[in-house]
């Protein structure tokens, strides 16, 4: 459904009197909206019987939704906090005008929403639109470039020596990928995580490591650089350049642009639910940017694998991730091979050679002059269970999903041959039959013997439709959107939808959203915001105009969730415990103060116009307004009371007397309210 222009433009915010608009005008808007709709059904209204049964209709804005315990304002705020990254100024009014159910329906059909404004903001980041091949070519590793030249020269010489048979091709691919993978590992991981916070240090430690948040070319001056270098542990997120340097061609720029784009979308995209779902699925199918070549693969992974399927069929999502270079590399499946493959190839090679040379009585072609034992060992690849295990444990069935170690091995065997072609040039998915284990496998009691690449596909089909998967995915979704420990009855209904809809993610979401549990009092503000959610929702609440979101990216890392830098395949936790700790809380508070106080580079925040110019004359009025704007008017009485006491502080009053223009720093008041316990939850 296309959004009428005046809705998108923040119309309601600028003219608050719109709340009193005559019904006929509202009807006109609605009819316009419906006329413009692209034939999208209004699902919840029709789909869920419980919605129909509701006799109570507390507010026309909530029509069609099973909302009984929340007021209209609360329900809209709740929706904006769960299905979006929190309200911008005026958003609550805007959704009320449209009706909540319609807003939700639009969000569930993101392509119906115009989103040109955010696309324009993303134009500044060219890597987002590049293919993996282009990224590798244009952003080479500094050392890699030299190595590559050397390797090419060497490979050429080797090729001249080597017979051009199939076995040789396979083993060279293996070698190339193996060395590229082992390059990375833990040290990179380490660097990347620490880098997110203090970019300088990793540069000092090892210039080869990814340091996505740092642009040396943009250093303002040498003195500042020196000062920062001394501040090795600090990593003040404000101490970074205004924009990504145009001249930087280092690979870390790729991940930096991904992170910047992620924040930009989350703040500005009208397709909010799409952004939330992208984040959810990326985290579910997590890939760590610090693992070797994955820094090149992630752009395509997010753009071509995660985003298109975020509200589609779960099986398509699993299949796309299984074939993605990012996942194949991250969980090592590209190295996995039938252990007998090398032997088999050697035998085939021998037979071919015999066929070619044998009958003419020529001498056996000379072997390469290496220790034969050593050579065999080197090119020999075996079964790697990494992907097989995580596919079941983390992507589909869940750790309690009822599989055994034997199943892990069988799944791994099924995926042998799912590998990469030229991982350091373009990294295309390739099924290499020569590496595949051709024997039948038994997975979860089912025989897998489709042959070749179909073995893996058959396993995906089996796993994607398994009841444990329905339960596991429903639980994770409900945990993200409802509460840390979601009601089992709701999870069961979602799992039923999952099963009956062939794993249709949108349908499962509808079941969840059109459930009373989603709108229950217990669920309201039950979730602690992740660092990413906190940063984005703050920028949205303040209506911050972000030029470069690099400082915001750094703050997200500083509060504990460095973007694209989650090393383990589990992804980041979606439970409160992971995010509530001393250091992180202090950083949350300092972030709020910096952003609201307009002290963040690349981001302009105008608390004065947001809270009303007149408010600065009267601290209490400003506070009331801030509580209204940022907390939906709902703060614990104790919070408001203590804040008011603070504002009675002689210092504040003194300032008021001295200078009529600067009576109360509204940035401080906004920062305090954004730092309140209430704003840490969504």
């Amino acid at each position, binding site marked *: 459904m296309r959004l009428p222009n005046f809705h998108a433009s923040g119309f309601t915010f600028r003219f608050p009197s719109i709340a009193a608009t005559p019904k006929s005008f509202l009807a006109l808007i609605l009819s316009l909206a419906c006329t413009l709709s692209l034939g999208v059904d209004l699902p919840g209204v029709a789909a869920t019987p419980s919605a129909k049964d509701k006799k109570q209709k507390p507010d026309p804005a909530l029509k069609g939704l099973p909302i009984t315990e929340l007021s209209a304002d609360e329900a809209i705020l709740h929706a904006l906090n769960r299905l979006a990254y929190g309200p911008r100024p005026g958003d609550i009014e805007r959704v009320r005008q449209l009706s909540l159910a319609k807003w939700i329906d639009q969000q569930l059909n993101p392509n119906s929403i115009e989103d040109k404004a955010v696309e324009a903001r993303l134009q500044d980041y060219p890597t987002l639109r590049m293919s993996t091949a282009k990224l590798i070519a244009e952003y080479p590793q500094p050392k890699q470039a030299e190595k590559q030249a050397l390797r090419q020269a060497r490979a050429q010489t080797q090729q001249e020596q080597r017979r051009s048979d199939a076995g040789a091709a396979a083993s060279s691919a293996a070698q190339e990928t193996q060395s590229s993978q082992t390059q990375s590992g*833990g040290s990179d991981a380490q660097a990347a995580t620490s880098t997110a916070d203090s970019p300088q240090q990793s540069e*000092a430690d090892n210039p080869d490591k990814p340091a996505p948040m740092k642009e040396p070319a943009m250093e303002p001056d040498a003195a500042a650089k020196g000062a920062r270098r001394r501040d090795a542990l600090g990593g003040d997120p404000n101490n970074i350049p205004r924009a990504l340097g145009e001249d930087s061609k280092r690979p870390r720029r790729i991940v930096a642009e991904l992170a910047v784009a992620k924040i930009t979308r989350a703040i500005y995209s009208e397709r909010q639910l799409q952004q939330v779902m992208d984040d959810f699925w990326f985290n579910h199918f997590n890939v760590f940017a610090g693992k070797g070549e994955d820094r090149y693969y992630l752009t395509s992974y997010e753009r071509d694998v995660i985003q298109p399927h975020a509200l589609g069929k779960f099986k398509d999502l699993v299949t796309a991730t299984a074939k993605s270079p990012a996942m194949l590399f991250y969980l090592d499946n590209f190295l996995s091979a039938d252990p007998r493959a090398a032997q088999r190839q050697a035998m085939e090679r021998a037979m071919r050679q015999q066929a070619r040379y044998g009958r003419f009585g020529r001498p056996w072609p000379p072997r390469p002059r290496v220790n034969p034992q050593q050579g065999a060992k080197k090119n020999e690849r075996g079964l790697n269970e990494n992907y097989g295990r995580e596919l079941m444990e983390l992507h589909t069935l869940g750790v309690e999903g009822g599989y055994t170690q034997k199943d892990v091995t069988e799944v791994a065997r099924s995926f042998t041959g799912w590998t990469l072609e030229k991982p350091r040039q373009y990294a295309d998915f390739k099924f290499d039959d020569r590496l595949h284990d051709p024997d039948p496998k038994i997975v979860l009691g089912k025989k897998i013997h489709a042959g070749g690449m179909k073995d893996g596909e058959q396993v995906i089909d089996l796993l994607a439709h398994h009841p444990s998967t329905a339960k596991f995915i429903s639980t994770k979704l409900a945990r993200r959107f409802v509460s840390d420990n979601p009601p089992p009855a709701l999870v069961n209904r979602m799992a039923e939808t999952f099963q009956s809809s062939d794993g249709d993610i949108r349908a499962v979401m509808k079941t969840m959203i059109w459930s009373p549990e989603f709108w229950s009092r217990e669920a309201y503000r039950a979730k602690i915001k992740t660092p990413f959610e906190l940063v984005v929702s703050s920028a949205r609440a303040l209506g911050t105009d972000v030029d470069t979101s690099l400082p915001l990216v750094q703050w997200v890392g500083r509060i504990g969730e460095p973007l694209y830098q989650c090393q383990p395949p589990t992804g980041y936790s979606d439970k409160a415990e992971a995010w509530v700790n001393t250091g992180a809380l202090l950083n949350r508070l300092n972030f709020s103060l910096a952003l609201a106080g307009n002290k963040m580079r690349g981001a302009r925040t105008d608390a004065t116009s947001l809270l009303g110019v007149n408010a600065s004359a009267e601290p209490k009025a400003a506070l009331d307004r801030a509580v209204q704007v940022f907390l939906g008017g709902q703060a614990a009485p104790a919070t408001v009371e203590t804040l008011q006491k603070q504002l009675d502080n002689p210092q504040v009053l003194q300032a008021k007397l001295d200078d009529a223009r600067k009576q109360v720093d509204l940035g401080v008041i906004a920062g305090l309210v954004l730092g309140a316990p209430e704003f840490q939850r969504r």
Partner: protein
Amino acid sequence: MVGLSAMPAFLQRAVAATPMPNKKQLVVLFQRGAADGLNIVVPFGESNYYRMRPSIAIPQPKRGGRGSGSVLANPELNGDAAIDLAGFFGLHPSLAPLVPLFHKNQLAIVHAAGSPDLTRSHFDAQDFMESGTPGLKSTEDGWLNRALEAVPEENASPFRAVAMGPNLPRMLHGSSPAIALPDLRQFKVMAQAPGMGQVVEGGFEAMYAQTVDKALQGTGTETFEAIDLLRKADPAKYRPENGAQYPTSRLGQSLQQIGQLLKADIGVEVLFVDCGGWDNHVNEGGVQGQLSNLLRDLGQSLAAFHQDLGDRMENIVFVTMSEFGRTAKENGNRGTDHGHANCMFVMGGDVRGGQVYGKWPGLNDHQLNEGRDLALTTDFRSVLGEILTKHIGVADLKPVFPSFDNNPRKFPGLIRT
């Protein structure tokens, strides 16, 4: 101002300025990326070592080096060869600053140690070493946190367990409170508006003290207690003592801040720090090169820490670990691949230093793990188990390292009792 008048119990104790007598402290350093133990503590007595590492081996110590005492006096003299420790093992020359500590019995080495799990995945191996349950992925907390639980303390300081860095490592996850500190100097509320510092901090403190949100209230209280405590300790004024000079590297600076925390007497008991860059598959180098640079930083940092802390080292044990070692044989890129057993350093006043502990498995082809790596003879949990038992005072190791037989008779014996 609300909340500031009521002083928490631990703070009263701290302010009473009676540094807790004999309170023991533990510092854990994780070398992420799998450090090459065979080039760190070099088994120069093994001829196969030199056969397997033609381009990266560390040469044998020069004859007469140790005997003449020249090593002690001027270790740099041996800069192009291993520094003899005990006639069979030698330290990488870049670790020269540690040689005096070894000979003063402040530094012990355990060789062929590590996690028994055979995984060669950085991810898994680090996970296992931090959870303390090799092979078991479902463990949610870390051994260091469980160790704190084993010696519970009422009114524990918010600084009881500290990780230097932006995030809490797996090792410190668990029910015992622990904090991640990227930088001491920035551990405060930054008001952004002049003259508003007190108002802002007081406002936050009051809001969090009074919120009905249990989780946030607890954390908020801890946070403001910690801020207050650190302010009193005044980290900005800190100068290292005894002429210690920390490297300007991240590791060096982290260790300096650790020293600072320990000297502030604010109830610190365990500290965690990590350093990366050890995954040298390509051009690892020998006497010079990538590994050498990392070791120079490590050696200088550890030596500076020891010097700075001075007499306080009596109450401190410093232990290092890395997820696994590297292949005994060098690879085709003058580097090494993922291996198995490794070496651990244990430093401190309680340490019976001057020895290389552990049964040496040998480096002949048939003695190697899976035909390629140093075999493992000491489980890292028995090294840690001994430290936790004898130094920290953990009475029962079972909950700390479940399903591992940590019989004290099997301890390496590197901690004084």
